[in-house]
């Protein structure tokens, strides 16, 4: 029988010697060019990190290629970032340029540092999950192709964190991203009364609904859904397989803006609804790509230096965000859930546009 509970490999065995020597004693850093970080330790030693983009969904061969590069330039040391980029870790300054050259020749985008758009945190989509309202890897690839330039340069007012989740479970950082792409269903689950009794726990299913749209039908050991109260979140499907709600004609994507995670300057905050619905249009989701690009560009040309997307919008006001981006404001933008009234404008302090 296999050993259990051995835990992950000890990270200390994975650290390049320059890190081991200067662990916890870093003094400052610089970003001499997009994708290259130089950290200087108290000791004066320097660590060069070269950041390359990744599709995240990678084959073992691709990983082996990365390993080969790391062995060639980095004594076999590398890491991944919390946003799924690859970081090659070098002690030797002289190897940086050749590494960059090889990465370029092999088609690795180098960047994602400083005031850039880094990799898109995303999820499974049609590749592996059972509840997606859209694909994940596809829209991300289509989008990154289009905004590639923002990855490899640092010309934005501040960094822009984009995330995608394929359903309301939001496996990813969607609820607190500068720009978030969120798959949504728009039709109510179809209850399969023959299966519910055998595969679902009725009380759990009833309890799963945020709006109380589900009622238990004890006689028939099934449930009924009040269509009027259902907003297609899919949580009932998560607990009850006999209530599927995917609908090719009506599933699609919503766009959210202005969230952030860091405590820099302003407090962390949630993303807010910008566009309630865009159609699923595989393979390249042109409507989604255009919409995100438009928001980025309006932000790029209007925000002040160091302002995150949300900070910019808070300063100029949401009226202005909608008028500048040309995105229509609808009743769907107005919160009607739980804490709704908190978001209503309870003052006369608004702008005309």
């Amino acid at each position, binding site marked *: 029988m296999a050993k259990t509970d051995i835990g992950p490999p000890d990270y200390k065995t994975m650290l390049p010697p320059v890190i081991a020597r200067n662990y916890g004693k870093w003094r400052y850093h610089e970003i001499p060019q997009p994708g290259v970080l130089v950290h200087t330790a108290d000791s004066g030693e320097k660590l060069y990190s070269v950041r390359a983009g990744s599709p995240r969904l990678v084959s073992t061969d691709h990983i082996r290629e990365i390993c080969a590069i790391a062995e060639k330039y980095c004594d076999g040391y590398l890491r991944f970032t919390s946003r799924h980029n690859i970081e090659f870790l070098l002690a030797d300054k002289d190897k940086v340029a050749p590494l960059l050259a090889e990465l370029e020749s092999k088609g690795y985008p180098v960047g994602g540092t400083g005031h850039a758009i880094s990799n898109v945190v995303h999820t499974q989509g049609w590749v592996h999950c059972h509840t997606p309202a859209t694909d994940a890897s596809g829209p991300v690839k289509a989008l990154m192709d289009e905004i590639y330039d923002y990855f490899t340069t640092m010309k934005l007012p501040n960094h822009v964190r984009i995330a995608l989740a394929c359903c309301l479970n939001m496996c990813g950082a969607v609820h607190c991203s500068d720009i978030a792409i969120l798959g949504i269903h728009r039709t109510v689950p179809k209850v399969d009364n023959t299966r519910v009794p*055998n595969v*679902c*726990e009725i*009380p759990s299913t009833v309890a799963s609904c945020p709006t109380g749209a589900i009622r238990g039908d004890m006689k028939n050991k099934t449930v009924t859904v009040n269509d009027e109260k259902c907003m297609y979140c899919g949580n009932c499907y998560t607990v009850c397989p006999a209530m599927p709600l995917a609908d090719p004609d009506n599933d699609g994507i919503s766009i959210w803006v202005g969230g952030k995670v860091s405590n820099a300057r302003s407090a962390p905050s949630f993303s807010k609804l910008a566009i309630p619905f865009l159609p699923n249009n595989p393979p390249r989701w042109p409507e989604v790509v255009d919409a995100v690009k438009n928001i980025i560009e309006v932000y790029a040309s209007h925000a002040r230096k160091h302002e995150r997307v949300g900070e910019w919008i808070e300063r100029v006001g949401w009226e202005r965000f909608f008028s500048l981006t040309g995105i229509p404001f609808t009743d769907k933008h107005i919160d009607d859930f739980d804490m709704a009234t908190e978001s209503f404008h309870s003052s006369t302090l608004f702008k005309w546009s």
Partner: protein
Amino acid sequence: MPIIELAGKTYEVDEDGFLQELDKWSEEFAQAYASAEDIEGQLTEEHWKLINYLRNYYQQFGIAPMIRKICKDCGVDMKKLYELFPTGPAKGACKLAGLAKPTGCV
């Protein structure tokens, strides 16, 4: 849906081997099915205590009990639980007890 044969009877189960017609459950089903969940030989009294507990709870409340509750009510700890059902309470115990496949735990 796959059909399995156990002790001479056939049962409809899902891909994970969970019973699809819960009323077909019987003690023979549980015993015959045990080896598939890495339990060797006869189900012991301790196994039955847990299986019966799970069934009663499910019948009464319509849901599977939370693990902590199982441990408390049956006087077992986690270690014991995994000793009895090496594939775990959700996969092993619930399956043999003929409960709907748990969804609360993925």
